[in-house]
């Protein structure tokens, strides 16, 4: 249909006239819904007919051997990679495949990358201040004031990530684990509905892992959290629901015990992993 024909259609409302729903519709349960998603890079199918549903407020762990498509999956959700087939919905109202990266981010999907990048010269407090959802144009930024409301929000997040005592310290002096928490805190400042966390405990000490487990389980319920992790001990300590990816599609799904007793999972992942670890 040509553009002019579309203009003469009297019974149809123009797209730009329809109100853009901004709130995420989770009345039907799932906050993220991926169906039959396929991505191929030069013929290699990184994701192959992937189906995944994350419920609102859920904490989900995704595991899988290298090359299983975990990172590609996150790239699809955040809009960095476009799938060749399939559909990805955020709630039952937003089609993520029709949105670009900033739009998806402002919709409330936050992603934490593996390597923590915090602003080392700025204090912990200032790091959170910059990350806060606000008008980010020049003049509003120049004249921005630290209102009580903003301070309260930053204090709340500082409390959550356990860095209240270090609030005025430059982020550069934080330990690796503390930087990871600060990074999670910076995501929380944007009040995300869905947090994608990539390998949060890589390089952490035992105590830091425990603290991270508490932090992530504490976030679940308020936010939906998807954790991609290699460390099986850590996954066991936080996961209620585990999804195993293999060669771009879901191999098994269930509680950690169900998954780890699944023979196919043992074959492709846990068994091999144990041998490697041994």
């Amino acid at each position, binding site marked *: 249909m040509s553009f002019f024909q579309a203009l003469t259609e009297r019974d149809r409302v123009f797209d730009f006239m329809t109100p853009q729903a901004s709130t995420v519709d989770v009345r039907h349960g799932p906050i993220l819904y991926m169906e039959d998603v396929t991505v191929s890079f030069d013929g290699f199918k990184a994701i192959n007919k992937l189906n995944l549903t994350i419920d609102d407020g859920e904490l989900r762990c995704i595991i899988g051997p290298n090359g299983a498509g975990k990172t590609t999956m996150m790239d699809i959700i955040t809009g960095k990679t476009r799938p060749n087939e399939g559909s990805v919905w955020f709630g039952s109202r937003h089609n993520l495949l029709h949105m670009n990266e*900033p739009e998806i*981010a*402002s919709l409330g999907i936050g992603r934490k990358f593996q390597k923590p*990048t*915090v*602003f*080392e*010269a*700025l*204090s912990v*407090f*200032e790091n959170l*201040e*910059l*990350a806060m959802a606000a008008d*980010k*144009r*020049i003049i509003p*930024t*120049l*004249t*921005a004031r*630290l209102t009580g409301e903003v301070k309260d929000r930053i204090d709340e997040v500082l409390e959550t990530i356990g860095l209240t005592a270090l609030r*005025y310290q430059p982020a550069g002096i934080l330990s690796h684990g503390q930087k990871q928490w600060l990074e999670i805190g*910076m995501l929380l400042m944007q009040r995300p509905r869905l947090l994608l966390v990539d390998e949060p405990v890589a390089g952490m000490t035992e105590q830091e892992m425990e603290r991270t487990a508490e932090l992530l389980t504490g976030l679940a319920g308020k936010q939906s959290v998807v954790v991609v992790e290699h460390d099986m001990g850590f996954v066991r300590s936080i996961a209620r629901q585990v999804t195993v990816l293999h060669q771009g599609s879901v191999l098994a799904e269930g509680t950690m015990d169900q998954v780890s007793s699944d023979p196919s999972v043992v074959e492709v992942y846990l068994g091999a992993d144990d041998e490697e670890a041994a």
Partner: protein
Amino acid sequence: MWLTRPFNERSTQIFLLILTVAVIAVTVLHLAVPAGHPLYVSGYTVGLLGKYLTYALLAVAVDLVWGYLGILSLGHGAFFAIGGYAMGMYLMRQIGDRGTYGDPILPDFMVFLNWDSLPWFWYGFDMAWFAFAMVLIAPGLLALVFGWLAFRSRVTGVYLSIITQAMTFALMLAFFRNEMGFGGNNGLTDFRELLGFDLRSGATRLGLFIASGVALALGYVVCRSIVGSKLGRVCVATRDAEARTRFLGYRVERFQLFVFVVSAMLAGVAGALYVPQVGIINPSEFDPIFSIEIVLWVALGGRASLYGAVIGAVLVNYAKTVFTGVMPDAWLFALGGLFVFVTVFLPQGVAGLLGHLKRRRDDEPSDSETPDKEATA
């Protein structure tokens, strides 16, 4: 109001106090002390100090983009020179028919080149308000166009430094040409009056010195209010992790452009105050060496601390005056040696040394830093 925020900061209060006291002291010592007395400040010295103050403002402008935004501009001399040329054009038009050739409209060099009318870009410079506006607009516009092209293409780091250098070099070559209409390699000189005040009189010289002090104070406050705002923190974030800042939703290139333009305008003001005090503006101000020297002042004084830039500019230029008087050939060696010394022993510059001493003194009593920061945050 964000512009008044710096007045609550201890460092700004101290800086403004020292600057005010220094300007008043020089004024009093110049006017009230009889010539020949050891404390007498001569008219020559007043002019020299006024020149240092304009250099200090230029250093503050460079520190704003280099220290806080991480853009090492090796072409800030160009903005300084353009501000200077805008002022120079006004001063040329003020000469009127008192030039050597006595032409009521055309400056001497145009008569000499057998031009019969004023080029279009000289129109309006007989009016002070227009010329003074151009002091801000011309460097700002150049920075806007240049910065827009550079930052939009995400040119940063060494590459940006190189193209800023190329920019000022190209401008130098262009201004050397007589056909450009800016006096060629002789530049603009033989000025007589500024706003009706005779530029050769001691009182005007003193007035220009005080004006330079006021301009430095204002420039400092403007920079402080930018640096101390959330925008300043976005700049620091951009400096240290540009991609991350962009990921947080800030349009990094617009912030860079904004700060770059503000800095260029400050450099233009510095140039405009410099020209009537030294009595000449010529294309050598576009020389890349000069732009590099500005960066040296900032490095010596302490990058990312605005008062450090002021200290650096004044110290280096005072040393330059002394050295070039005592043994002219040794100056470049002394400058090089000074730079090596500071890089090795004072990586944070003089300001870093001051901050270090302050911390050592503060460590004795309780930690007074934290509540102070909360108040200013």
